């Protein structure tokens, strides 16, 4: 029997676990990609303005990826990511430009509205027990309409210069919006890994039945997850409003796919119970790199979607193959000792997994 007690050895174990994780792979990909891009652009990619633009437009993908991740971690989906983001952005813009509300108040109102919409969505799912997919599909439709109604066909751009300045500010060449996104990610990570509420959320996602038996209300966790998702989308809308030249009804239209791509590439399972804050952030990085590379080599923008599609597919298929490989290894190892600890009670393992919707 090996007992790991001393701190050093434990640290080594943690490191070893980390080195094999998706996050580590992503970190390598990000670093290698960044360097390669820098070399390919003969250094211009390392210069101040490039770095600033790169990071400037990374804020929103990071935030929407995290918003989706928090929904996924309790086994829910949020199809309304883009619609809610677009609606909130337009709401902020209209409040500031048309109603003359001060920027601070408008931003607060926007973020609060997004959070409230998330809360209502969660409550609705819990109350009616309708599949979250369908409910968020419904809220997505409603919000799209609401966004259109707010903005109409125009682009709202006459809003607070202060907010714009903040959006463009980049102390030490790091854009403020990017710092905001990172701060949100750090807070989220602290919440999920350190707070009791965060652990309850993860417990409910990892094994809902067990969580319920331990006195954790899964319903409450679903509501909480959607509320947090709404909050993060609110912040994403803020960063978008601050860094875009103006908001119109197309804001958020292309957020849905990247919001799923980031957590999936980052190693989050759709079945719930797993989170990877760093992984999601890094995956957003990877996608931004693809975009930057596209711009660098002035290729058709469609390449980005195509490549991201392949990366998502490659990630999940690769992960699946890796897992079957592990299982095979596990079963061959289990054969040598006398009792492979498989119980009669779980024969479903033997049946092929059919890749159902969930």
């Amino acid at each position: 029997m090996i007992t790991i007690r001393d701190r050093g050895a434990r640290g080594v174990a943690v490191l070893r676990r980390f080195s094999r994780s998706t996050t580590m792979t992503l970190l390598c990909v990000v670093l290698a990609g960044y360097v390669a891009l820098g070399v390919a652009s003969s250094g211009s990619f390392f210069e101040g303005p490039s770095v600033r633009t790169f990071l400037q437009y990374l804020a929103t993908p990071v935030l929407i990826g995290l918003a989706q991740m928090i929904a996924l971690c309790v086994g829910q989906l949020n199809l309304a990511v883009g619609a809610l983001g677009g609606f909130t952005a337009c709401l902020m813009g209209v409040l500031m430009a048309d109603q003359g509300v001060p920027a601070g108040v408008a931003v607060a109102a926007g973020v609060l509205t997004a959070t409230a919409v998330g809360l209502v969505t969660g409550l609705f799912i819990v109350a009616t027990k309708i599949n979250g997919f369908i409910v968020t599909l419904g809220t997505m439709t409603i919000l799209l309409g609401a966004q259109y109604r707010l903005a109409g066909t125009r682009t709202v751009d006459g809003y607070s210069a202060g907010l714009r300045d903040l959006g463009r500010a980049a102390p030490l060449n790091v854009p403020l919006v990017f710092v905001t996104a990172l701060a949100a990610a750090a807070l989220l990570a602290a919440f999920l890994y350190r707070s009791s509420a965060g652990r309850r959320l993860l417990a409910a996602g990892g094994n809902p039945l067990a969580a319920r038996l331990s006195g954790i209300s899964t319903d409450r966790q679903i509501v909480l997850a959607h509320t947090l998702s709404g909050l993060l989308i609110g912040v994403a809308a803020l960063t978008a409003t601050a860094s875009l030249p103006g908001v119109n009804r197309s804001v958020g239209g292309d957020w849905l796919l990247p919001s799923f791509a980031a957590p999936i590439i980052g190693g989050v399972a759709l079945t719930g119970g797993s989170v990877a804050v760093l992984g999601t952030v890094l995956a957003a990085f990877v996608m931004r790199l693809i975009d930057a590379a596209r711009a660098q080599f002035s290729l058709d923008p469609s390449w980005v979607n195509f490549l991201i599609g392949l990366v998502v597919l490659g990630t999940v298929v690769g992960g699946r193959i890796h897992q079957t490989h592990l299982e095979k290894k596990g079963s061959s190892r289990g054969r040598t000792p006398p009792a492979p600890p498989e119980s009669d009670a779980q024969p479903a393992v033997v049946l092929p997994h059919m890749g159902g919707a969930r």
Partner: protein
Amino acid sequence: MSNVLLECQAIVKVFPGVRALDGVGLRLTAGSVHALLGENGAGKSTLIKVLTGVHTPNSGRLTWCGDEVHLRSPLEATRTGIGVVHQERNLIPGFSVAENITLQSPPSHRGLIDRAAMTAPALTCLGELGLDIDPDQPVRELSVAQQQLVEIAKALYTESRVLLLDEPTASLSPQEAERLFEVVRRLTARGTCVVFVSHKLEEVFAICDTVTVLRDGRSVLESSPLADHTQDDVVSLMVGRAHSATEMRPREVDTSAAPVLSLDRVSTAAGHRDISLDVRPGEIVGLYGLVGAGRSELVKAVLGLDRVTGGEIRLHGKPARIASPRQALHVFGIGYLTENRKEEGVFLEQPIVRNITVTVWKRLAKAFGFVSSREEQEVSHDLVERLGIRISGLGQNAGELSGGNQQKVSLAKWLAADTRLLIVDEPTVGVDVRTKHAFHELIWELARDGLPILLISSDLAEMITLADRVVVMADHRIRGEVDNDRDYERMSGRIIRIIHDRALSAVGPKAVRA
């Protein structure tokens, strides 16, 4: 009595189509070990869920130390002082051992988890069970037995005054189980009441003081001292009749006939080694073993769901390579009545007619794959009559039927397909006594008419009632074979001895592997 901790009276719990509990009473006193016994489906797990606030009873009364309580949630039950180890796995796979143990009330400071403060109590609980594992390790990396012990450690952490253990020893080795019993004795010495649910009567008689027996959702024996009863008494109370195996007359099986199915030194990817087995026409071969012995997995390998890595499977004397259950059915005529009726047997949300005819569409299909509903109705109607399935119409959803009738529907599809070999896996789990009886007669009749049957059952009485020959399996190997002489005492003794001799010699390394 002043030291009564928890008492329940006339508890009723109804689920759609089933009265799971129908007037159950129970009295738990401090410092005792109380056995809760009953066959599968008798209502033990439901009662435990009522006692721990998972289910709210439809009627009845619960009192805690003399005061009436309403347990509306598991958390309320825990706060009251009732702890539980459920039968299902209740660990969060991605969390560490320490976090799982302290899940119900994690040490925290202003809403932040205090991981350092988690380790000490976790180590204490693990230490009590003699379990030496790293509390920071994620639970998903542990073996099944270790996970089971962590579940128990989790229950110890809450320091409950009533601790319910639902089949805690199912996946433990005898040594590990003995360790657990020591803990139970220590707890009762401190005044805790432990409720012990187990199928292993020897364990029950070794450590329990009082006993309650459930049958069909009623308590047929209520909180009675165990010393007043023998094992036979208790068993006959559980099954509702003396378990003499007399209903089935002994019969002759032509042992010279060529076997329909024979396994010759088969090894599988699931870990089976050198399995040899014959099933002849009209013969019922029993495959007995404890949970985890690898019986269902063996069948799944035969059906092509798992890889056969060595040896040979022969059907009607010819070597057969079966790639899928579809091939097993349509080419070799093998039917498999699964043990997991709800997950793998019936299509709950589908009409009965579809449930029965699923195996024969291939035969019924005409041009363009057209299947006539009339023919389907005819096939189903005949089988419904023949098996005496109680339905209101063939269009009814299978999920609306009682467990026994669902099981009959599940069997009907194999009879519709005229299978030439039937594998029956735990056919009467969760089925009431009368249907169980009818089922036994049915299997008996099928064999009498020449159908070879491989019967898997954990119910020793069922084995001895039905099987002509009992093959005993443990740890994915065949440990012995007994010809059935239908004398329950002698047979059960021989079978149990085969299992236990092996079990004792085989557990060593597993108990200490971390």
